[in-house]
Structure formats: structure tokens, C-alpha cells
């Protein structure tokens, strides 16, 4: 029954018009970013960065590098917002619409219902990140007629790396997978708020507020010694997979930290949900 219930939850998520609009919006934003990367100023800055370090821009200004740039900008613009929107909706919207009361008139335990919904939501956001990774790479590759080599520059993480096409593809795929995993923290946070007595929009806004405050604080020098307590520090671990020598222990530490935090969010959300009264 669990598999059937999970399949149904996924069907509910993927059959919604909002899902199609959301995925469509991602495609539009990706294409817009691709177009912006063609602006002379952007191209020049990119070329200057590579040539000043002794690399040929033509080799790196291709599918892989463009794909990665598209991912970074799309995530910054839309990724967090959309994942928070989905996570914030998953319980609160059903309560608001009245379908939750219909579900809870059936003999299903609240904990089981929540578990099914959470897993469905996690699969959904993971799928979204994979979709983002694939379509970004496709957009860049189609535009530049090939993968090319991969160039990665992340100043905050002290990463400046270049990879051959084969290595670049592997690194790109691995980073997208890790991105899909770390995104789960946004899902879990939004899900926790969604389980509390509030409107879906409030759950989304609260989630984004927490992430924003986290990001701002992390970038204030005063908090430099507390880096490892911030969510944004650990979510950035997907970018650290591009380091020449990957510090897997640091990445594992981040994933464990996010996993523990996600589990905490889930437990708090489940407690709030199980203690709630559902009434019209």
C-alpha cells in the first residue's frame, strides 16, 4: 500500500497545472540566462578571466560551462523559490482546500500520510534539480554545438578548475546529483512550516525568509567563525565537488549536517501535524 500511496502522491504533484507551469518557467529562465550570457560584456568578462589564466576561451565557452552557469543563475533566481513553494504547499494547500479533511476521514495514520507526502515531495524536488541539470546542459550544448571543456570558478569556495570533456561531464553529473540531495533541506524546511497551522503562502515566505537571513548572516564577516552552522554553507557543498582534489570528508560532513537538520525539521513538522485539529 505504501508504494501505491506514494505513486498517488506523485501523481497529485506531477498532474497539477502548477507543476507544468513551474517546469516551463524554469525552461524560460534558462533560455533567458543563456541569452544574457551572449551579451558582449558577459562574453568579454568570461574571456578575460580565462585568457588571464592562460586558457583558450573558445575551448571552454561551450555546453558544459554554459550549462553550469545556467544552473547557478537559475538556482539563484528560481530554484529556492520554487522548491519552497512546492514544499510549502504540500500539506498546507491540502488543508486549505479541504482535501486533507477528506483524507483524514479515512483510516490512515497521520504519521504515515506525512511520510508518504514528504517522500513524494523529496522525489519531486530531486527530479526538478535533475531536470534543471539536463536542460541546462542541453541548452548550452545545442547552442554551442558540443560539450567543450568545463571551466569552474567559485570564488567563495576558492575553486578555480578546468576539466576535459569526459572529466567535466562526470563532474557535472555528480554535482547535479549532490545539488538534488542538498535541495532537500529547503523541501524539509518548507514542509515543516507547511505542517503547522498556516496558509501555504506563509509557509513558503517563512522558508525563504529563513534561507535569506541564513545567507545574509553567513556573509557578514562577524560570523565568519560560525560558517559551519549556516545552511547556505552546507548547501554550497555541491559546488565543492568541482575542486581539483575533492574534500569528500567536508562534503560528507555537510550532507550529514543537512540530513540531521532535515530530520529535525521533519520531526518538528510531524509533531505539529499530529497535534493539530482539522476542522472546516
Amino acid at each position: 500500500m505504501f508504494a501505491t500511496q506514494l505513486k498517488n502522491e506523485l501523481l497529485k504533484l506531477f498532474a497539477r497545472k502548477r507543476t507544468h507551469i513551474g517546469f516551463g518557467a524554469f525552461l524560460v529562465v534558462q533560455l533567458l540566462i543563456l541569452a544574457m550570457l551572449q551579451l558582449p560584456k558577459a562574453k568579454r568578462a568570461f574571456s578575460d578571466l580565462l585568457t588571464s589564466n592562460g586558457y583558450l576561451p573558445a575551448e571552454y565557452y561551450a555546453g558544459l560551462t554554459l550549462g553550469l552557469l545556467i544552473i547557478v543563475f537559475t538556482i539563484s533566481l528560481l530554484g529556492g523559490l520554487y522548491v519552497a513553494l512546492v514544499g510549502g504547499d504540500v500539506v498546507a494547500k491540502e488543508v486549505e482546500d479541504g482535501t486533507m479533511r477528506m483524507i483524514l476521514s479515512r483510516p490512515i495514520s497521520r504519521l504515515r500520510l506525512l511520510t508518504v507526502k514528504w517522500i513524494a515531495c523529496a522525489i519531486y524536488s530531486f527530479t526538478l534539480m535533475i531536470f534543471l541539470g539536463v536542460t541546462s546542459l542541453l541548452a548550452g550544448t545545442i547552442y554551442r554545438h558540443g560539450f567543450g571543456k568545463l571551466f569552474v570558478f567559485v570564488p567563495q569556495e576558492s575553486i578555480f578548475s578546468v576539466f576535459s570533456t569526459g572529466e567535466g561531464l562526470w563532474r557535472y553529473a555528480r554535482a547535479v546529483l549532490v545539488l538534488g540531495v542538498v535541495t532537500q533541506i529547503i523541501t524539509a524546511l518548507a514542509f515543516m512550516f507547511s505542517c503547522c497551522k498556516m496558509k501555504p503562502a506563509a509557509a513558503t515566505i517563512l522558508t525563504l525568509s529563513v534561507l535569506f537571513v541564513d545567507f545574509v548572516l553567513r556573509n557578514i564577516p562577524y560570523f565568519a567563525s560560525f560558517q559551519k552552522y549556516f545552511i547556505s554553507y552546507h548547501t554550497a557543498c555541491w559546488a565543492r565537488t568541482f575542486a581539483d582534489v575533492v574534500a569528500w570528508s567536508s562534503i560528507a560532513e555537510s550532507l550529514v549536517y543537512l540530513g540531521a537538520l532535515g530530520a529535525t525539521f521533519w520531526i518538528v513538522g510531524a509533531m505539529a501535524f499530529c497535534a493539530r485539529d482539522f476542522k472546516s
Partner: protein
Amino acid sequence: MISLDAVTKRFGARLAVDNVSLTVPRGGIFGLLGHNGAGKSTSIGMLLGQVAPDAGTVSIAGVDVFADRQRALAKVGAIFETPAFYDYLTGWRNLRLFCEYSAPFDAERGREVVKLVGLEKRIIDRVATYSHGMRQRLALAQALMPKPELLILDEPSEGLDPEGIHEMRNLILRLNREWGLTILFSSHLLSEVQQLCSELAVMHEGKLLFVGNWRELDADRQWVRVQVDRQADAERGLTGAGLVDLFEYDGRGRLAPTATVPQVASWLVAQGFAVQALHPVERTLEDFYLETIHVRDAVKK
């Protein structure tokens, strides 16, 4: 079948249900009557394990709802005033989806209940295209899917047109008579409750004011309607003369145990009232309900 034992529920400062004890026997249609906000929906919420009581116990078929909710609700179907569905999915998919939260979907049973509620021609359409009446019928179909022994209907006729109300009423009667379902019918529509239930409970401001067969109450007493020129004087006089126990709205009064209609007529004529109408009337649920509420309010004052 249903047992609420000294149940109390408070929402903040508001006492929604106040020490209510109620037993609903198996096999009948039991009415739960009360104004909006009387505590009916909260009581139903507690029966379904959706609202946790602050005190007291709730059980269905002898199983405590809050100790073993899954077993208690295994043979229960419920519908609400405004049934909600996933509008972007078909009626059939919705039926399947709600059913699979608790049991595997039985397509044969699905076709049977869809036919019973008369949705077979529209069941593969998206719910977004359904009218309120069709949604209500789909809700009833999903409530019937797990082969329930108890059906809880919370304001099922709300928002339906007269034809829809008539259909719903017939369906409820059929489910009770042919399928043998125990039905808890909550409504503030007195005419609906009157046509469906003899046994009922009246709730008011969270309290239970009456439980039992309202038709049997005062069954040996006669009610009359008196219309005269000086109505207020006549009502006072008849009550003072011991011919009528009490008057309700519209000149309807309950005769004293020994009084008769001719005696009332003679008294009115003797007192010089110009009698416009004097005839026996059948006591409606509305009379009973208003009397119950008014007595309660009078006691409170």
C-alpha cells in the same frame, strides 16, 4: 454504534462541546441537529479522529477512536458540507486516490457505487467540470467505497438545489433500508432531519439539549392553531384559563392534557374574541426544535 462519553472540546476561550454524552444505536438514521456553531461539526470531527477532545472518550463500534483510530474508522464513511477533491483529476481517479489511502482499490465496487450515486456518465470527466451536486454525489461514492457500516453525513444537503436535496434524501433512505447502513445525519435543515430521522440529538452552544425520539415526545398531546383579533390577549387568557400549556410562534399552542378544541372555541367566543381560525395542527420538528432551544434559553436567563 457510536458513543461519546462526557466529551468536552475547547478552542481557545470558546467552549465548542461541553460535556456531551451520546449513544447512537446501530441500524437507524440518527439526526444531529443544531444551529451553525452548535458543536455538531466538532463532534463529528472528534468521531473521525480529526479533532482531539480535551476530556472524555469517543468510540465507534466499541473501539476508542483515539486509541486505535485505524480500526475504529475501518468501516466508516464520511462526507462533509463542502466536499473537496483534486479538481485537475477525473472523478474516477479521485475515487481511487481517496480509497487507496486505506485499502486497495476495488474497481468492481467502484462501478457499483458510481452507479448508485448516478455518476456513471461523468465519472471520467475532470472534477473541475462538476456541479456542487455532482461533487456531493462523488463524495458519497468515496464514502461508500470501503463498504462502511456507519455513514457520517455532515450537512450533505447544504448548497444543493431542491432536486438535489430530494435525490440526496432518497439516496440516504435507500442506503439505510437496502444496504443496512447506520447513518449519522448532521444538519441545520429542519425539514430534512424531520423527513429522515425520528431519533435525534439537539445541540445548542456546545451542549446536548435533547436525545431521543422527538415524535414520541408529547405524542399524546394535541396542538392547535389559534387566530383571533386580539392575539396576545387571547394567548394570555387561554394560558391563564388552563386550556393551553404554551404558545409558540404563529398562534400554535399545546392544549392542556384535559382540554379539547371545542372547549377552546367556547372560551374564545365567550370572551368576545373574533375567531378567524382554530384548528388542530401537526407538530413539526421546527416546533419541537424551537421549543427545546427556547426552554434552554429561558432557563439560562
